[in-house]
């Protein structure tokens, strides 16, 4: 009798959970939000679209790990469940005081260790070395990303491919947000934008800086993430695949203050023509602003 009521209770609870969840999820299906620019790519409860040439290495490791983890968990869970049922306390059953010689557990532990070593030396360290040291030599685009509370600034070096010097003392948030110096010849053709534009299929070297606190430059579709640390200039690189032109999101991944959640920028992957048109637009001498 008692056992029976337990089963009913469990069934009712489980039913409530399933029904509750489905109704909650259905009733509150989330309407797409207007974020100004239509964002390309597919997003859901798994890894998002990958538009980077090297991103597959990150995805591969994540996938391999998850298969391994699920396998280990299921195998281990089956043994666990088997023990719970088989060795439950019941009249006439007494625990076996002789400890089993569990060789399989030793093998399991050794297998786990070997597998981890393979992951580490096969999939992780070499890829990390590539990420950290094999900077592209095929004439990459160079961009500086300067983070601040709560916005991203993208500093392009212009035609001479040289960044002008920055002086924090002359920062003017309206007209000179990075403190570019007029007397530096390397900085004459530099320009700064709030949008990130790169050319599809071309490698990009990004230097990451911060004006105030620690931010983190995160582009989910590129599998790129790097903290922006004040006082440091950290280079990273990536290369977009061909035919990936579109708009994607840049987020801040490190808590940076009140509006951390709204520190978002848009990355435009352009065809060479689109990029040239954008550069022309941004570098055009500003016309006088006239109120209508």
């Amino acid at each position, binding site marked *: 009798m008692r056992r029976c009521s337990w089963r009913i209770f469990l069934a009712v609870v489980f039913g409530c959970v399933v029904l509750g969840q489905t109704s909650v999820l259905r009733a509150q299906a989330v309407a797409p939000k207007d974020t100004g*620019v239509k964002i390309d790519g597919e997003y859901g409860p798994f890894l998002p679209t990958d538009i980077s040439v090297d991103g597959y290495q990150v995805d591969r490791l994540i996938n391999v790990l998850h298969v391994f983890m699920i396998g280990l968990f299921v195998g281990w869970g089956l043994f666990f469940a088997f023990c719970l049922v088989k060795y439950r306390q019941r009249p006439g059953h007494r625990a076996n005081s002789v400890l089993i010689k569990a060789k399989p557990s030793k093998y399991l532990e050794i297998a786990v260790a070997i597998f981890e070593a393979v992951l580490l030396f096969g999939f992780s360290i070499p890829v990390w070395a590539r990420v950290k040291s094999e900077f592209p030599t095929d004439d990459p685009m160079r961009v500086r990303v300067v983070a601040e509370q709560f916005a*991203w600034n993208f500093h392009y070096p212009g035609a001479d491919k040289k960044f002008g010097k920055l002086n924090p003392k002359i920062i003017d*948030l309206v007209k000179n947000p990075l403190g570019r110096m007029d007397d530096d010849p390397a900085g004459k053709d530099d320009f*700064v934008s*709030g949008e990130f534009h790169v050319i599809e299929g071309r490698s990009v070297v990004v230097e990451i800086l911060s004006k105030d606190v620690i931010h983190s430059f995160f582009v989910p579709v590129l599998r790129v993430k790097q903290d922006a640390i004040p006082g440091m200039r950290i280079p990273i690189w990536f290369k977009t695949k061909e035919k990936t032109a579109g708009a994607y999101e840049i987020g801040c991944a490190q808590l940076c203050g*009140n*509006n951390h959640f709204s520190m978002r920028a848009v990355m435009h992957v352009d065809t060479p023509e689109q990029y040239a048109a954008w550069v022309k637009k941004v570098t055009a001498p500003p*016309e006088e*602003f006239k109120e209508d």
Partner: protein
Amino acid sequence: MQKTFRYGVLCAFAATLGLAGVVRAADDGVIKGKVIFKGDTDKFKRSPIDTSKDANCKKPIGSWDVILNKKTDPITIKNVVVSIKEGLGDKKFPPKTEPFKLTQKDCQYDPHIIAVMEDQPVKILNGDDTNHNIHFLPKKNTEENFSQPQKDEVTGKELKFKLEEPFKVKCDVHPWMGAHVLVFTHPYFAVTGDDGTFELKGLPPGKYVVEAWHEKFGTMKADVEVAAGKPAEKDFTFEPK
């Protein structure tokens, strides 16, 4: 003896009343004038602001540190705050009770100059479909820094500033957004508009030092004497290099 005293008191009372009447009647002194710009207007063109950081900021906006009224003759300057600097003595004035409304609209502050009295409520509203974070950067008053993620053109948030000083305001989400707060102990201040004029009303007659403040061009002072019943005129001329 007693009678004399009574009369004395009565007379004194009457005199006080009379005097008060005189003062009240004379509290309509006015200083008015305009703030004139002299110099090369090409140096102070408004430049368009790059709002590409937030795609929700769709309307083009321009820089506001110098706004010249080119249609007036002579050319005048907008957003100059003219106020009484000296001459009011130790008189205390009750704070204005109606709130000063500051709206964040099209990713800029409206109005750009927040001239208020001490303890006068400032109501901050968000007229945009985006998150704003208003950050007051005073030296003497307490620093305020809060976000307004939702469009809210009615309730908003109210603040009060306790101490007289000018200071900056900025938005931490849209770095270009800036404004200035000027806090006064008295109600005699005015901000120049599209015609570049100002008017300080309700002043008792007397000698005053009047100050004109501009965020870019600095301050300028002038002595003005206000007589009862006749508006005093005073123009300020900024000649930036």
